[in-house]
């Protein structure tokens, strides 16, 4: 009988280089799935949030229901949200994405609306005086001015989505959450710690990327401060 290999995997240590090198592909796939689920969810959320926020600003009566419904959606627990959507989507990646979209809506709608409402009336009037039509006013003046507030919401929504994806493990589409879940059941410390740290790294990286994007998109805010 050969002696068991005396490495960090056999000793089940928290930090283990052998784990990183031997499971490189598994980790990479999980990271990819994690990023994909987050990105798709946040993008769909953004596409849905814009018209909702515009409607809430345009028609006074729409603001209450839009904000109310999205807030209620936000109070539904993630595990419950995934299970409530289960009859609609089954055990699929769409289930996780749909749940995350509903969460991001609250943060995005609120922030986009706040940004649009903060555009000064004089600015709007000046643009109208220069002959801007409603569409051009929206695209060239109002949306750019609403961008900082909208981006703040987008950053919070993205960071929250990255951490919520892990719960998707219950239906098998949790990205790094899958590794945490299986690591918990097999008491595999290196896997749990590595996956957890990667989650935080993805969240921080996404936040910094969005911050960079915001600075590139709003060069005028830099010269002022």
């Amino acid at each position, binding site marked *: 009988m050969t002696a068991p290999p005396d490495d960090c995997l056999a000793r089940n240590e928290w930090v283990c280089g052998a784990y990183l090198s031997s499971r490189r592909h598994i980790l990479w796939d999980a990271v990819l799935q994690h990023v994909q689920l987050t990105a798709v969810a946040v993008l769909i959320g953004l596409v849905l949030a814009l018209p909702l926020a515009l409607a809430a600003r345009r028609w006074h009566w729409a603001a209450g229901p839009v904000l109310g419904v999205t807030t209620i959606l936000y*109070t539904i627990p993630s595990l419950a949200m995934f299970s*409530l959507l289960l009859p609609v989507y089954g055990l699929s990646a769409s289930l996780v994405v749909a749940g995350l979209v509903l969460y991001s809506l609250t943060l995005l709608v609120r922030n986009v609306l706040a940004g649009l409402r903060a555009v000064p009336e004089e600015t709007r009037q000046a643009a109208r005086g220069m002959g801007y039509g409603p569409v051009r006013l929206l695209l060239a003046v109002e949306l750019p001015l609403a961008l900082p507030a909208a981006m703040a919401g987008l950053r919070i929504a993205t*960071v929250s989505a990255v*951490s919520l994806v892990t719960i998707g493990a219950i239906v098998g589409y949790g990205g790094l*959450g899958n590794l945490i*879940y299986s690591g918990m059941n097999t008491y595999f410390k290196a896997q*749990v710690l590595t996956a957890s740290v990667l989650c935080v790294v993805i969240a921080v990286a996404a936040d910094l990327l969005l911050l960079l994007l915001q600075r590139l998109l709003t060069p005028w805010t830099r010269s002022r401060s």
Partner: protein
Amino acid sequence: MNTLLDAWSWLTTSAHWHGQDGIGARLVQHLYLTAVCLLVSCLIALPVALLLGHLGKGGALAVNLSNIGRAVPTFAVLVLLLLTPVGRWGEGPTIVALVLFAVPPLLTNAYVGMREVDQDVVRAARGMGMTGRQLLLQVEMPLALPLILTGVRIAAVQLVATATIAALAGGGGLGRIITAGFNLASTAQVVAGAVLVAVFALVVEGIFEAAQRLAPSRLGLRAGETG
């Protein structure tokens, strides 16, 4: 529609309400977990936030903590704790993970609330010879109360929602009904569990909403009497 009807009949089956795994027992566990975590988080976060807000220091700390808190998945923290010696303390890992999760919103809201107190009022109170302690307890804290309460409400609702995650790691609470439903492939039970948690969260939200609506009006009345 059928799923909802199935879930309704699952909920209304009296056998599902009793016993060790029944809805009643799970509800009590959930309430206990939420209440203990909320209490511990408040005891940790509020004194620190009030003191920092009073001194006007540590704003960056409060905001950064809140951001970091959002980036760290509670589920990951729970599992990490479960695999350490803390894992042997029964509900210990769940409580620690949930407290870590609830502290940031409490800290940020209370700190911001303290900083947004009208500085003219603070200066006037100081001019009247109030000590720092009187200033904190009699002026700043009452004025910051609405925002502090908002923080407590956010933390409470999120705790109710997040306590379900304990079930993924074998803990108690209403989440167990959901995970058990997944294991039994019973969509009706899963949906029933989800509805229970969602209703619980909304009830907590409603209670705080009502409390908040009553509190400021009374504060306003008192301010009107003295001013």
